[in-house]
């Protein structure tokens, strides 16, 4: 029997599926894990650990923030900067300065290219002057993986964090465009400019910043879906491919043009 739970966290709808007779406690624990990680990784709460880092420029961080920053910096190296956690100010300049549901029209800021310095030394994270970090996509992938780990105690499980999907066992049919993929392990993510769009300065904006220009990416692609080892890697590769990179270590890639 497939048990299902839906809730809102990290600015999107989270869906937990687990194949078990009873899974009240693992479902509650997985949901709690999402809310806990949101308090660490979101840039939309002033009291989150990430907001403290962006405000102070240096903190002794907890293990989750350290891990996600390390994953993001590693991804930046591997994708030649197509995936970059330092596009925070570029997102703000494009107008994504509050949760998506609260966005309004306004003036367009100057593009802010990525590539800012982020230094990790044990649990110490130090940002270069003027650098701020956004962990939106990779944070959801990380949270999906953590929640899937918890749910897997009850049975084969799937966690869908607004499109970032982590799977532990079972065989889960997942709708991607007009095909259905059956995933039994690994992760899946979709990145595109078909959602999370808004208008600024009379021009349409979207949330996928090209770190090289510091502005929303201009590409023929509308959407990219990737299946990889886990949800974090799928998220990284989906952005990498969307911005013209070559897919690395992907089990499946589906790119849709506009």
């Amino acid at each position, binding site marked *: 029997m497939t048990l299902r739970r839906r809730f809102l966290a990290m600015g999107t709808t989270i869906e937990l599926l687990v194949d078990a007779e009873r899974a009240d406690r693992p479902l509650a624990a997985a949901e709690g894990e999402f809310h806990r990680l949101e308090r660490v990784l979101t840039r939309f709460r002033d009291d989150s650990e990430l907001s403290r880092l962006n405000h102070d420029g240096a903190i002794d961080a907890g293990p989750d923030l350290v891990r996600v920053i390390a994953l993001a910096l590693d991804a930046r190296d591997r994708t030649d900067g197509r995936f970059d956690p330092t596009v925070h100010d570029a997102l703000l300049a494009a107008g994504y300065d509050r949760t998506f549901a609260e966005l309004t029209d306004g003036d367009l800021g100057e593009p802010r290219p990525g590539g800012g310095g982020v230094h990790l030394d044990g649990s110490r994270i130090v940002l270069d002057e003027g650098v701020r970090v956004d962990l939106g996509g990779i944070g959801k992938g990380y949270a999906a993986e953590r929640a899937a780990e918890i749910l897997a105690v009850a049975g084969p499980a799937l966690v*869908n964090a607004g499109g970032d999907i982590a799977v532990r066992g079972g065989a*889960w049919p997942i709708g991607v465009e007009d095909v*259905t993929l*059956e995933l039994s392990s690994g992760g899946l993510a979709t990145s595109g400019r078909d959602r999370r769009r808004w208008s600024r300065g009379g021009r349409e904006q979207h949330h996928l910043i090209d770190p090289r220009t510091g502005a929303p990416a201009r590409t023929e692609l509308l959407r990219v879906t990737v*299946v990889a080892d886990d949800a974090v890697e799928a998220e990284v590769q989906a952005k990498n491919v969307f911005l013209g990179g070559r897919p*690395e270590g992907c089990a*499946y890639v589906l790119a849709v043009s506009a």
Partner: protein
Amino acid sequence: MTRHVAGRLYALSLALVVFFLTWAVVAARPWSSSATPRDPRLDALARREVKLRRRAVAVHAVVTRRWAAYHRALAARRAEIAAVRALPAPAPVAPSAAVRVVTLPPLTITRTS
């Protein structure tokens, strides 16, 4: 009469000389050893110093031996690391994700996150 007095004076002088000579000899205590006895604490300290010097030499020998062993191990480890670095990069690991296209109705969907 005069010779009688002079004899007595002579005997008295001789007795005084003999007395003082005897006194000087007794005061010199010729039967005791001429060297001053050593303080036993100094002897103990001297013995301890010798013992510590011997121990310092032994410890130095052990440290020298271990330092040499450490340097040999370090050189061997550095050689191992250099050998590994000289190897060609391993082939990329195949993704562990298991996926296939099916015709089943989806249980969930993915969309732009």
